[in-house]
């Protein structure tokens, strides 16, 4: 194909000249939710989703998508279906009044709880509870909050379903501070501009 770019000129003809083929719906990967800890000691916050064929690939893609530029010390990645979601509380409403507090029998397991304080913000990690189901975990999570805390929505995910960052993996992010060429602060054109303006005016 004729192009200014020699690499485009070298592209193979792939035989979709006029009517391109439909994209067959074969490669819809699973959906995973990603939580990022921006600094040591700060809570994990929800950053968005990635699509991947398994949890390990999702973890790699999450690292590329959400921690390429911003400081990060650790990641949580979990399959979207493994996250239970509470109803949304309306203005003035308290989310815990919307939850069924009846606890069923069964084995206690550890759940991670994420809370939303305001619409438009991100869900942040508040802690873990032991419960027999995700619904029960959300109802029990009330004890994690100070009295009067505003919570309008909760997510709960079983601790063992989450892909955590291991201690050895933490050096993933140690090169970030060296990559100054990706910072606005590395592009100080002021002196050059001043010298140019003095020379020309």
């Amino acid at each position, binding site marked *: 194909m004729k192009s200014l770019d020699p690499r485009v000129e070298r592209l193979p003809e792939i035989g979709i000249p006029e009517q391109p083929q439909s*994209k067959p719906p*074969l490669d819809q*990967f699973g959906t995973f939710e990603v939580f990022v800890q921006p600094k040591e000691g700060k809570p994990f916050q929800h950053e968005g989703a990635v699509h991947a064929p398994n949890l390990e690939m999702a973890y790699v893609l999450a690292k590329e998508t959400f921690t390429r530029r911003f400081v990060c010390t650790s990641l949580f990645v979990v399959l979207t279906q493994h996250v239970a979601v509470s109803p949304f509380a309306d203005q003035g409403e308290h989310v815990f009044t919307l939850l069924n507090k009846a606890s069923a029998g069964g084995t206690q397991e550890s759940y991670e709880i994420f809370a939303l304080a305001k619409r438009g913000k991100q869900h942040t990690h508040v802690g873990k509870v032991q419960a027999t189901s995700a619904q029960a975990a959300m109802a029990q999570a009330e004890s994690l909050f100070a009295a009067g805390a505003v919570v309008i929505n909760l*997510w709960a995910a079983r601790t063992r379903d989450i892909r955590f960052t291991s201690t050895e993996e933490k050096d993933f992010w140690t090169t970030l501070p060296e990559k100054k*060429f990706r910072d606005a602060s590395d592009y100080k054109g002021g002196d050059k501009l001043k010298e140019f303006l003095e020379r020309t005016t």
Partner: protein
Amino acid sequence: MYGGGNTFEGIKNDGLAEEDPGKLAAFEARIARGEKIEPSDWMPQLYRKQLIRMIEQHAHSEIIGALPEGTWITRAPGFKRKLALMAKVQDEVGHAQLLYSAAETLGKTREEMIHDLITGKSKYSNIFNYPAFTWADACFISWLVDAGAIVNQLANAKGSYGPYCRALERICAEESFHLKYGHHCVIFLAAGTAQQRAMFQEAINRWWAPMMHFFGPSDKISAHTQTLMKWKVKMSTNDDTRNQFLDMYVPKIWELGFTVPDPALKKNTDTGKWSYTEPDWEEFKRVINGDGPCNKERLEVRRVAEERGRWVREALRSEKMAYVEPLA
């Protein structure tokens, strides 16, 4: 980077008459209170449809916008410029990932969006249908096209849909590097040799019309536009964003001793509005409908990428994994 409201198309039936009046009133009251709408909330069909279209076009623009600049990575002057341009192009592709996810929360799968891009059904910002002939063209894109995009994106970040606003906040934070980098490149051309200066002047001359097109034609103030503005889907008119761009960047272009190829361009100091020669909107329509210098190449490159990645997607595919909408 991306072009704003220019790709809004008219809607024949807004479907508002069929919406539940009680739910609609509660939805509008929430937006009027300044609260964000989240994916699980009730929303009118028109709202959903327009947001999908807008976020999807934005995502496609990031992908396609990486192509004219990507061309210049291997030829950027010096190691440092190559590193920076590579990082910028990588950012643009990353922005598309964030935006596709935000659009998915409204119910259109990523697969469908990519399908609509490669079959030519979905639009992307028209400006990327023009070629980057020289390094100076790449600098024009990095500085001024990104500047235009930031004007749009900062406005849209104050919109009503939570996932889109969150994606835009991340994007805008990264764009500040693009803008400073672009300006830095242009200052170096401006302060360089006569040949370098001429190169950038030629780039301005080539890109000015597409840059004016970038913000879209004057909006017809229809009931439809007013509804979208009330719902904080469209945050300002195309003329207002164009004016804001001119106000912020024309003085910076002039400061560097370059000219803008429009003798009518001047600011009315009383009203704060810029007057200019209307760009050729017939050309805009022609190019956006497929007849531009690079439309074919842009889609072809994307299709080849799709085709070449097929075996990887097939190899990775797992029957056990099912696609679901992201949560937020």
